[in-house]
């Protein structure tokens, strides 16, 4: 991985990002804006599941309202994420936080797909009463996305993992 990161850092496109100093902060900002859309979409669906918000909407209506924004924002996150990896490959790829984040991301996406599938089969039932299992998964989903935000920020501080860090403090 280190060889790959160092090779990537020397490619033309990576050098171009590194030499235009505004690119990384600007792309990071777009990334954060998109995270705002993802987190709030997950939050609104969760609040609907628990009956704290949007009770005038059915579950399918709620998911239709926020689902497309969630997937759209995830697309933006993927693109801006790839630009950041290309611009700073060693910083990203040589960090435990990054790989834990990717793992959590896979779980978060799997949970969202599972939820949408389950909703299609149980739409009517869920509008009357959501089962404890679904409520539990809703909380797990929110925690997974919160952990993704934490891990994303911790990429800048990989030393917090101590000896597990791929980039320990000198």
């Amino acid at each position, binding site marked *: 991985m280190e060889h790959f990161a*160092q090779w990537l*850092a020397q490619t033309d496109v990576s050098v171009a990002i*590194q030499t235009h*100093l505004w690119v*990384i*902060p*600007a792309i*990071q*900002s777009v990334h*954060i*804006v998109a*995270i*705002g*859309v*993802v*987190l*709030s*979409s997950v*939050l*609104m669906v969760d*609040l609907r599941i628990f009956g704290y*918000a*949007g009770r*005038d*909407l059915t579950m399918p209506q709620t998911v239709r*309202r926020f689902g497309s*924004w969630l997937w759209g924002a995830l697309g933006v996150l993927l693109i801006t994420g790839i630009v950041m990896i290309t*611009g*700073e*490959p*060693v*910083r990203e790829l040589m960090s435990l936080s990054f790989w834990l984040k990717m793992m959590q991301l896979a779980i978060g996406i799997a949970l969202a797909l599972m939820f949408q599938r389950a909703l299609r089969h149980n739409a009517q039932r869920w509008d009357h009463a959501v089962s404890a299992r679904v409520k539990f998964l809703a909380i797990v989903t929110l925690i997974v996305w*919160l952990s993704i*935000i*934490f891990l*994303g*920020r*911790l990429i*800048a*501080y*990989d*030393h*917090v993992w101590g000896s597990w860090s791929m*980039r*320990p*403090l*000198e």
Partner: protein
Amino acid sequence: MDITTFLKQIEASGFATWIRDSLYAFPLIESCHVVGLTMVFGTIAIMDLRLLGIASVERPFTRVKNDILKWTWLAFALTVTTGLLMFITNAGVYFHNTQFRFKMALIALSGINMLVFELTAGRSVGRWSSDRIAPRAGRIAGALSLALWIGVIFLGRWVGFTSTRHLEPSQEINLDNIFQ
């Protein structure tokens, strides 16, 4: 007491020193700040997009707002608290940082924008709440709010690149202090 002395004093306080010296405190506080600010932005965007007639148009504006605004304030409280904690670790630098000052100005403008909205379109909300799109004053407030908060996020990230951070691990590529 002048401001420089005051900033030095809060920087030297036991609490600020503890955050600075801890390996974990600052990264975790900063992560909570990101959670808070993304929630502030995302929930405000839901209301702004409703005003602009882009999303949630089938629901009355007041219903959207009543559902969401309390979560926005909760998230805002988390963001301000964590922001203050980060500020005290390096108060002098942040205070004189141009991007930081612009960021505070934009947050103040967002507050003014919200007040103006409440005093204009907000007063007659009963008349247009169920319309798919808000009257002009509401649309302007919604668009301004979106632009201001996106500006706050950009400036906030920029502050991170222009203010010195304690404890910078050595790396092959480190763009964190690039603007110095």
